[in-house]
């Protein structure tokens, strides 16, 4: 649920960033969202550890409050900021090609968002390759990681920062709520089909690409929200996989010995 919580919680940061920088282009937006993402994680931890609120309730209260503040800020600053509720909800990929990055010499470099997405992709891939071993260890057995001296807290915080950053950079395209689907649905689907971490990552990427293209095409056919359709396609694949697996539980991809337990 952390992805869900963070994607809702960064909203006030994005709005304040918009307001400070006066445009959607600013670095302030990303800084604001990053700060709010970290703040949300801190509030959740504080509620859980210091105030002894149970975990699900701490998450629920924190992200609904921050999201509500974000919506209120949008309404208060409606005349000063080029941002509306619909954009928050489902973004609009179709408008992005219009938003070109034009150099000082007047030379068009193509859509600006594309560079942001490429930058994000490079950062995420670099992050995973650099910390692959550590991430694997802390996700499977955090206590063991702590025992052998890994800074598990710092690694988790870094992972959360990557989630915040990814959320922010996808925000314009798909909106704050649907980005959760793109974070969770492909790995959840792939998880049904494989028991090996490397195959899981590959399958997740393949699914992500397929969902985007198929979703875009479907949206083009019925003339609807592209982001919404991408998620709907993902949902159909996910539920279809779950149904198939419930009938034939032993079919797996990516592992030659399905009876072995999860290996890394």
């Amino acid at each position, binding site marked *: 649920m952390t992805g869900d919580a963070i994607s809702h919680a960064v909203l006030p940061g994005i709005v304040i960033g918009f307001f400070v920088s006066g445009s959607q282009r600013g670095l302030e937006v990303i800084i604001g969202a990053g700060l709010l993402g970290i703040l949300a994680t801190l509030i959740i931890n504080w509620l859980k550890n210091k105030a002894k609120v149970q975990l699900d309730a701490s998450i629920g209260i924190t992200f609904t409050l921050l999201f509500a503040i974000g919506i209120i800020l949008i309404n208060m600053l409606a005349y000063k900021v080029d941002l509306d*509720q619909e954009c928050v909800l*489902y973004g609009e990929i179709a408008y992005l090609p219009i938003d070109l990055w034009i150099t000082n010499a007047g030379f068009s470099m193509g859509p600006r968002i594309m560079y942001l997405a490429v930058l994000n992709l490079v950062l995420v891939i670099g992050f995973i390759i650099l910390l692959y071993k550590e991430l694997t260890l802390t996700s499977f057995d955090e206590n063991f990681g702590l025992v052998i001296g890994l800074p598990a807290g710092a690694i988790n915080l870094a992972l959360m920062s990557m989630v915040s950053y990814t959320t922010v950079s996808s925000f314009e395209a798909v909106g704050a709520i649907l980005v959760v689907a793109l974070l969770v649905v492909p790995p959840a689907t792939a998880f049904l089909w494989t028991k090996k971490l490397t195959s899981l990552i590959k399958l997740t990427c393949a699914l992500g690409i397929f969902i985007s293209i198929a979703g875009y095409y479907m949206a083009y056919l019925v003339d609807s929200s592209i982001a919404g359709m991408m998620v709907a396609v993902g949902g159909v694949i996910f539920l279809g996989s779950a149904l198939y697996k419930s009938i034939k539980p032993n079919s797996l991809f990516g592992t030659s010995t399905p009876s072995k337990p999860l290996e890394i």
Partner: protein
Amino acid sequence: MSDFVYFFTFQDASIAYVVIGITLLGIGSAYVGTYSFLDKKALLGDAISHAVLPGICLGFMLAGEKNPLYIVTGAFLSGALATFLTSWLKSKTRLSDDAIIASILSIFFGFGIVLLTVIQKSGNPEMAGLNQFIFGNAIAILEEDLYIYGGLAILIIITLSVLRKEFSMLVFNADFGTSIGYPMGAIRMIFNVLMILAVVIGIQAIGVVLMAALLIAPGAAARFWTDKLSKLLLIAGAFSAVSGILGTYVSFVIPQMPTGPWVVVFLSLFAFASFLFAPKKGVLSRFIARKYYLKKTHQDHLLKAIFHGLEKGQSTFPIEEIYESFPYKKKETKQTIDDLVKSDLLINNQGLINFSAKGKSEAKRIVRLHRLWELYLNEYMNIAPDHVHDSAEKLEHILTPELEALLENRLNYPKLDPHQETIPRDNDEL
């Protein structure tokens, strides 16, 4: 100010409707939410509240207008489908709970957004009202809406009150219910239906995105004030109703403002205030209680240290020597001695510390409790004499006079503890 008077005197019948509606809705969702909070399934409410969106859109498409009956039915059906899928996925796959909830939530919401944009492009003039379901607009509650939403809210409240015993069993110990022959599966189903209904009635006023807060926050906040279920429900209902009315007031005064976010902000204020300031369980009162306890234990230890010296035959206690027996705590020890002198337990005679009569009897009491407890552990629990000290070191600060009398009685007013040290009494020579 005139707005304030106008709003709260209910001169306008439509405002009265809105306030009645939001109060009923707040209480209903707080009741259901409190149970789901106690069941540790708070996030299921979040999933359901996002998942009703496609149902709302389908209901709208079928009716061709904002007919509350169609919309409520559609929302209910898609909420039910989402709840069913969640438990189906849980039993059929090895995905974790939160992955299932996040997937279902976002898939249904995404599908809802697709339908919403399709409706938008179809150019239906009634469309404008549909956006209100996302962030809520309580001011738009009409008389006919009130009958449906209010009626459902009353239905929820009545069902929960009638079946209180069954639902308490469900959230606290479902296995026990099964073993004494209650149909727990059916009870869980009724509960899920109520939860979906609670979400459905909230969509007009609060909106699908933030409805989860109305289910989670009141229960979580009220939990800090009481340990009794009946009071818990009352307090949660009150928090929810008051925030609902305040949120409605704000969106009445500032017409651009959607109601949902403000209700959530007020509710969260109550929740955070409870977390911080609630007596006994709040962060602040636990902090104060801890400080007080630490101070009390240090006082007890200091009195005990002087008493042990007295037992060994020492008659004068230079203050420096006491400081040394509590290394690295000089400042704290000085403060404690000052406090004890002030409360007339110790006498500070130019740097030489000694007991007052009252202080001596207090020190005896602490040492007595310590040694009685050691003896009790040794005799009744068969714990070796070299293992009883640590437990007694904690219990000596806690044992009440009643327990002391009971221990004395059980152990038949003993003279010696397991380490062959005298158990001091008030009329002893020492």
